[in-house]
């Protein structure tokens, strides 16, 4: 266990060391928030609500996206693809360490830094638009939201590991990962709340793990989900997590075997 803590602390140092990369990342995320914000603001116009979202709920949703994006969507997929295709993966395979545990520790470090800065950004924005955002009163809502966010970030991490492991077989696995990330952001609700979509598509999406990653946590935060229902959502997400972990580790084992057989 200690090795993963040390990996976490080293990665934390490294993330802070690369200030310019961090700054660019943050600016990119911020730009998305600002454009989403202006977009919804324009759509809302003078109307008090739109598609079931009041102005303050919609603004809160947009800001939540910024926080969740930072906390959930920071996987290690691209690193894994790079390490497989460059052969650097070897240096982990000869050391007594679990690649997933190690990567997760590094990811946690990224998440820590990004979540903290996202929180500060949102606080700044909320202050700028003075009081227009929705904050839940019930501490239980906060707790449920936090639990959902943590589960989502784990689901995302292992999904990325799953998709990136394809790099063991093809040299073009950057493509699948890119498509996957784009589709995922849409399907998770990271561009807009999913309930603005037609009923049929919504039903289809809710059979996947994606809405559990941004949309449901955000709805929990907005107090649009009764708590028993929120608990049920968490249970389903936990099941998804188990399935994704199982699949990711299974594919990984296959991948390492084929790497060892074919000599990456």
């Amino acid at each position, binding site marked *: 266990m200690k090795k993963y803590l040390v990996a976490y602390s080293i990665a934390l140092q490294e993330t802070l060391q690369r200030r310019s990369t961090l700054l660019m990342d943050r600016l990119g995320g911020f730009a998305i928030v600002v454009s989403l914000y202006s977009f919804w603001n324009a759509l809302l116009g003078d109307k008090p609500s739109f598609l079931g979202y009041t102005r303050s709920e919609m603004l809160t949703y947009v800001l939540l996206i910024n926080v969740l994006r930072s906390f959930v969507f920071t996987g290690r997929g691209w690193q894994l693809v790079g390490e497989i295709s460059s052969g650097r993966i070897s240096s982990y395979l000869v050391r007594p360490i679990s690649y997933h545990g190690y990567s997760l520790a590094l990811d946690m470090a990224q998440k820590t830094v990004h979540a903290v800065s996202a929180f500060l950004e949102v606080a700044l924005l909320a202050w700028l638009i003075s009081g227009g955002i929705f904050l839940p009163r019930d501490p239980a809502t906060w707790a449920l939201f936090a639990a959902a966010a943590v589960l989502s970030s784990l689901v995302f991490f292992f999904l990325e590991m799953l998709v990136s492991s394809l790099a063991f077989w093809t040299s073009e696995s950057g493509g699948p990962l890119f498509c996957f990330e784009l589709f995922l952001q849409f399907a998770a609700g990271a561009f807009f709340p999913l309930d603005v979509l037609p009923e049929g598509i919504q039903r289809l999406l809710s059979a996947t793990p994606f809405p559990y990653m941004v949309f449901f946590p955000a709805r929990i935060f907005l107090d649009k989900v009764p708590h028993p229902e929120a608990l049920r959502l968490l249970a389903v997400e936990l099941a998804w997590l188990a399935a994704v972990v199982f699949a990711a580790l299974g594919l990984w084992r296959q991948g390492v075997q084929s790497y060892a*057989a074919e000599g990456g």
Partner: protein
Amino acid sequence: MAPAIETKGLTKDYRSPVKEPGLWGGIRSLVNRRYKDIRAVNDVSLRIEEGELVGFLGANGAGKTTTLKMLSGLLTPTAGEALALGHVPWRREAAFQKKLSLVMGQRSQLWWELPAYETFRLNQAIYGIAEADFKMHLDELVDLLDLGEHLSVPVKKLSLGERMRAELAAALLHGPRLLLLDEPTIGLDVVMQKKVREFVKAYNQRHGATIMLTSHNMTDVVALCKRVIVIERGRILYDGALDRLVESYADHKILRVRFSTPVTASDLRTLGSVVHCEGESATLEVPRANVSASAAALLRSYPVADLNVEEVAIDDIVRRLFSHS
């Protein structure tokens, strides 16, 4: 005593997809991929005792790296068996990995943005090295490798030679019993090469670790290895004392001379066979037994500015060995 490494009939085929030319070929190969097998290592049986320092030689593509990858557990062989420190390497058991280190000259395990010391700390945790052992090993490595002030500088700011030495330290902190070095001196200048060599030798003597090393640099091999294994197209061609290999196959040495005034090739013919002669510099091949006589004659009869006696390049010896068999 059980050997450190023992292999029987170790064989590795690489299977790579045949790329068909053109767009149509590309589409066809997506549907019906054809493969070509390349036998990189062919029926290699060897036995290395604990504490030996063995040089592993061969031309480019001979199968050296592939063999080291199998012995470190990165590759599973197509056929054959191997035991390293009593383990089957490709099972990748933690107990084995804690006693092993694989260093590839062109690869780095150091964290680029941070001082090497941070990677050392990480490896301490990964290998579960007790604090006292860590301090002791680190002190020794810093001393032997002359690392001192380089440990607190971000790795990306180190020179290649400094980084390579930090790399070695990172790989040895856990005191591996088996060390596989793939071209540890590649890209280093002569002074750095020497430093790394001396280090490897000292490490082997102090700790009795078994070391297997590949290099295209004959000086490395001569300075370090009593025993060499030569591999050619995946097969073992020679396994035995280095002395015997060099004496029987490199029957001459190279004299590299720089004169202070130009000399013509015909003047030098009596001293050895002239490989190259242009203006003020010349290269001669001289039979081993005549080296000192020829050198003395050169110094006596010509205005010599600089004179070097070198071993024949290992690749030449290997090529000669190949044509002998």
